[in-house]
């Protein structure tokens, strides 16, 4: 049995994963992929990924649900939309990445991932002011999720601060209540079953 280690067993796959993805907003067109690699080639962060966007789609088709949703790579998407506009099959790859993220978050695959935490902290900051505060975001992110990274990046932070890119104070937007209503509605619409 030892020699068979590392072989992808069909019994360990979730064969209907692709159908599940098709049900999620953003995942509808996943079956159309012809695996050309335009998305991975265009992606500015693909060199940091273990599984590129193209391979994530291939893994979805194969039924490797756990591997895909556990992957930190889905959190590396910066929403630059290069893949989205370049895909020859018109697949909305960025939307697909969001679909992966939502599914990963719902099923608690992603809560240990920094990407997930960054997203959560970002939304908490935005909910507080109605806009982002970079200093607070970075402080919370590095404080809660990545203390070593915070130390490593001290000098960059200092530089940004001296240029005035990390403001100490942020004004709340007018009608924060109205803004929160919008955010809540959006969350409700995107909520997964």
């Amino acid at each position, binding site marked *: 049995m030892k020699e068979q280690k*590392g072989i992808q067993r069909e*019994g360990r796959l979730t064969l209907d994963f692709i159908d599940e993805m098709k049900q999620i907003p953003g995942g509808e067109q996943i079956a159309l992929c012809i695996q050309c690699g335009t998305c991975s080639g265009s992606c500015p962060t693909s060199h940091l990924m273990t599984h590129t966007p193209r391979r994530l789609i291939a893994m979805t088709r*194969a039924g490797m649900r756990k591997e895909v949703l556990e992957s930190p790579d889905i959190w590396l998407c910066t929403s630059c939309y290069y893949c989205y506009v370049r895909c020859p099959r018109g697949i909305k790859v960025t939307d697909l990445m969001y679909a992966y993220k939502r599914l990963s978050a719902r099923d608690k695959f992603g809560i240990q991932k920094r990407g997930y935490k960054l997203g959560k902290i970002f939304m908490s900051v935005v909910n507080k002011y109605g806009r982002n505060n970079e200093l607070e975001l970075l402080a919370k992110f590095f404080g809660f999720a990545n203390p070593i990274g915070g130390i490593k990046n001290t000098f960059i932070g200092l530089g940004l601060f001296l240029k005035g890119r990390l403001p100490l104070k942020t004004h709340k937007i007018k009608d924060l209540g109205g803004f929160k209503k919008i955010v809540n509605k959006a969350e409700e619409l995107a909520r997964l079953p």
Partner: protein
Amino acid sequence: MTNPRIGVYVCHCGTNIAGKVKVTDVVEHAKKQPNVVLAKEYKFMCSEPGQAMIVEDIKKEKLDRIIVAACSPLMHEKTFRKALEKAGINKYLFQMANIREHCSWVHEDGAAATEKAKALVTGAIYRAQYVEALNDREAPMNPATLIVGGGIAGIQAALDIADSGRQVYLVEKEPSIGGHMAQFDKTFPTLDCAACILTPKMVSIGQHPNITLLSYSEVEKIDGYVGNFKVGVRMKARYVDPKKCNGCGDCWQKCPAWRVEKPKGDKKVVHNALTLGPTKAIYMPTLQSVPNVPVIDKKSCIYFKNGKCKICVKACQKDAINHEMTDVVMDIDVGNIIVTTGFKTFDVSKMPQYGYGKLPNVISSIEFERMNCSSGATGGQVLCQNGEAPKSIAILHCIGSRDKEHHEYCSRVCCMYALKFAHLVKEKTGAQVYDFYIDMRAAGKGYEEFYNRLLEEGVRFIRGKAASVTDYAVFPEEEGKLIVRCEDTLVGKVRRIPVDMVVLCSALEANADAPEFARLLKLCQGKEGWFTEKHPKLAPVSTASDGIYIAGCCQGPKDIPDTVAQASAAAAQVLTAIAKGKVQIEGVGAEIIEEKCTGCKICNDMCPYKAIEFDAVKHKSKVNDALCKACGTCVAACPCGAIKAKHFTDEQIMHEIEGVLYDAKL
């Protein structure tokens, strides 16, 4: 005799020649040669102005020999010969020196290439002193056409020619026409029923007043030449008189012997018998056979084993069955021949890693086609050997194709028929379909769209050629299944996939008897056994033998639309030849000098075209100009040197050699 007046033209061919050979040097060299009146260079001699220059010079300078140093005579000899005719001199006074294919294209050293070009041009000049004017001959064109092979290509070509009012003989070696297409159920990418589009054409063949259908027959010998072929066709004994038989089916219903038996015991479906049966000893190949006449399989018929039975004879009310029937050889005269002998599928048992023949439910593509066909043994149902529908099925591309061990080429149709299979399986059984491909080749009208459709239908495409099929279960979910092992190259994982059925998409290959047939018709075969066309791009249906054309898969793997297009193209070529009404035969050929001939007859048997007859009265041999192909065999064979090869006389050849070696230091 006055001295000849020679004009030499050296072509640049853009940079094809001038890029390597110093054309000006060659021209200067040519000017110094004997009897050369003028030598010129030009960018493209084959162009309109290039030809006009030759015509003008012939008239002005009274030239009577023209030499063009340019490309291969295969390319432009005709062009320049026409220019000579236009200027009013005999076209055989033209000489071509090939300084492109034989020189500039194949040499790296420019200086040496220039020297070689000089030598070739000198050879042509020396030869030109001795060339003679010759006259072309004409032979009548027989308007009848022979078509060998009654698949879709042969059917299409036969109908095209017959519809123009010309006689067609269609020879098919099987008992019914239709070929491979008649065995299919659906055709990609439109999924229209093969029988629905083919049978009307098959019926038209049977009914057409201009088509003589010779089914269950084989071409045995071919003599003659374009316009006047004499063909011997062996009509194999089918033991049923087609004139009396009405195709009622009483005979095979009563027949007690099986040719291919029905499945017995546990086996509900015998996959490897699907292509043939089950049928009785007297059988009709398919329900839509044309001609609608059964045939007796001598091997399984009881009468041929022990001389008793004849139940079919009693059953037949039309008295059509005759066990004493023998083969008949028929001679037919035709002007042109179209070869549409098709292909056979690769024997997938040659790749033992897929377990064909050993593992149950590993089947070849043609068996799968038969299983899908509504007129097949399972009535169109996809079934495993135990009679149950498969829940999962693997379709393996490129079995025997793109493989140096078997066939290096891509069989072109497998990707598409695999997609068709995947669709049919989904439609009929709802099974999980795994499709293992190396590259998805969907180049054709509507083909990529068909692939997209299959993607949306949820077929599991796995990029990676399946490495092996086994029934050895390692994991519990694999018990009792066939396991396909492969690398999913898009995921980067090795996978083991358990399935109920494996379909091997076998390559298309040349027929086993193709070499024999090629010898019979003097056709050329490529490395892979396909018949070779005259030119891969510009003469795709002609062959090196005049009057013999090829179409369909005997030329190379292709799909039905391409086959039909090629068949119509071949028909058009034949009709063009028929419309001309005559065959032009080149003035080049052998001529026997009677004074020298001793009547030894050695040449008579030597001639591969049977063009030499013996005149018993004069006791001399004589060449039939219409049959002579100017091969030169007799010239070399004659012990008395009594045969002259017109346009290739000893004098011409020796002087050409002398010219080529003009600077040799002896």
